């Protein structure tokens, strides 16, 4: 294996993700677990940036490390600061489920195209045509924006509707804030 500095960075970042994931799984203090998931997202964002995907990295940093962490902390505020430690026999089934799901994902990795391959669907399908046509068609330098808002505008409308639906669902489940609690002094 050649010593490409970017690949060393990839491996280092992925190793950090693994360590943080184990730390989150083992954390008893839920405040620490919530903060560590934020750190996890931030390192994910750095990794996406290394992979030349600044738009995805930006979203991950803003949503994953920012808003999600705050919502996690809000949940910790509601649920209490400490996790209940379950007896060993009740931890076996979740462990088996997690290992099985992880194993299936690792098995699926063998079906992915090699890292940086020119024959991936993204490089051999319509992706290349978007790159060529986005400039003359839309005069928008950032092709990602052109694809998201124009070529795939209908998909993005769906995503916006999904976020709106999630908002409605949260309103239905948690209520519109203070109103139902009646002040709660």
């Amino acid at each position, binding site marked *: 294996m050649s010593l490409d500095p970017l690949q060393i960075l990839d491996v280092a970042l992925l190793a950090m993700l693994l360590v943080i994931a184990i730390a989150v799984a083992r954390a008893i203090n839920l405040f620490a677990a919530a903060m560590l998931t934020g750190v996890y997202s931030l390192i994910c964002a750095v990794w996406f940036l290394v992979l030349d995907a*600044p*738009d995805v*990295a*930006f*979203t991950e940093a*803003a*949503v994953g490390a*920012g*808003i999600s962490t*705050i*919502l996690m902390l*809000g*949940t910790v*505020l*509601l649920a209490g600061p400490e996790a209940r430690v379950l007896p060993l026999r009740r931890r076996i089934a979740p462990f088996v489920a997690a290992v099985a799901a992880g194993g299936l994902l690792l098995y699926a990795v063998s079906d992915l195209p090699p890292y940086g391959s020119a024959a991936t669907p993204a490089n051999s399908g319509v992706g290349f045509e978007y790159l060529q046509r986005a400039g003359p*068609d*839309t*005069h*928008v*330098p*950032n092709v*990602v*924006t*052109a694809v*998201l*808002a*124009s070529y795939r*505008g*209908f998909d*993005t*409308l769906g*995503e*916006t*509707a999904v*976020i*709106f639906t*999630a*908002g409605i669902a*949260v*309103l239905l*489940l*948690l*209520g*519109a*804030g*203070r*109103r139902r*609690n009646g002040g*709660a002094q």
Partner: protein
Amino acid sequence: MTAHPVLRVAAKLLIPMIVVFGLYVQFHGDFGAGGGFQAGVICAASVILYALVFGMHAARSVLPPAAVRVGAALGVLLYAGAGMAGVALGGNYLDYFVLPGGQHAGIFTVELGVLLTVSSTMVLFFYAFAGRARDIPGEDG
């Protein structure tokens, strides 16, 4: 009453910058990384920071929950309306070429819709979660 003066001053300095950065990400999304989604989250973060430092009560009076709910719906309506405008002007749904401003106007409008929905929904999430908790005390908490 005057708890955490450092936090208060830092938040007062940071919140305008966060909003300006959010708007930059919104309107610069055509040229650099970013767009309505990221900008919406950043703008929501400024409201959340305000609520964390100055209390839910103050945040609710700055940005009432009713306005947030209307904003979330308005964003989707704006996006879908941009699509219907294409139909009304003789094109297909979400066809920006027939719009007066062309592709640029279409992308601008739908990104604005995304910004409205995302920022409103994120603040709405926060209001819903924080409204359930007993103690995010503010100035008068």
